[in-house]
């Protein structure tokens, strides 16, 4: 997890195109300036970042389903529930599945667990559009390799 670059996901553990599910892993950094303010003497991972981790997990799944032809963007978060604190250094296991694929949008369900215990979950809506430029697509493909995205799931022009 590189919070400075808003990279929340470390690696993809499983990607099932047929079932439209994904599981990823992400370790919360042991030290980060965020924890100096959130909170002094009692550092916990901000809920908004947990939501972002679920959004990024869902995003990788949608990128796979759309064969890297389109880019999903966060549009709405529903029923986000923070069920327990997440501390520095803890390893998140994040699961997401597709709830619905519409025209130009998709909805997912995502869950964050630590040590098997559910920490938060949400229903997330994305709008998606064709990649606005080659640079972004190239960046996402490079990121995909970095997180262990199955290369056969990336379509090539």
């Amino acid at each position: 997890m590189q919070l400075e670059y808003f990279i929340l996901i470390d690696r993809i553990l499983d990607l099932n195109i047929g079932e439209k599910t994904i599981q990823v892993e992400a370790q919360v950094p042991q030290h980060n300036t965020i924890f100096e303010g959130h909170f002094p003497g009692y550092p916990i991972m901000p809920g908004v970042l947990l939501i972002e981790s679920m959004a990024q997990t869902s995003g990788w799944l949608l990128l796979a389903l759309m064969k890297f032809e389109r880019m999903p963007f966060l549009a709405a978060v529903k029923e986000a529930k923070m069920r327990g604190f997440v501390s520095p250094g803890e390893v998140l296991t994040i699961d997401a599945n597709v709830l619905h694929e519409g025209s130009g949008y998709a909805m997912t369900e995502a869950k964050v667990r630590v040590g098997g215990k559910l920490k938060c979950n949400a229903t997330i809506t994305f709008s998606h559009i064709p990649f606005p430029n080659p640079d972004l697509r190239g960046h996402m493909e490079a990121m995909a390799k970095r997180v262990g995205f199955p290369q056969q799931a990336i379509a090539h022009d």
Partner: protein
Amino acid sequence: MSSTFDQVATIIAETCDIPRDTITPDSHAIDDLGIDSLDFLDIAFAIDKAFGIKLPLEKWTQEVNDGKATTEQYFVLKNLSARIDELVAAKGAGA
């Protein structure tokens, strides 16, 4: 009015918290009911699920942006209901 309209009106009322009795077949979802594009995604989701179809929102939006169609053709509710009926019929014909 058709049951399709009734279902759509109920979906809109429940999704956007709009009084059901203010929604008529001639209501324009955007201009009259004030539904924005993000809220319309929730409506599209509910319609897709209820009717087992996929509203072609991107195609419609493109047609409107290109001047090939008006928003009234797709977003006045009696017209939207007719589009839904067409999609349901096409799905049945293709099954």
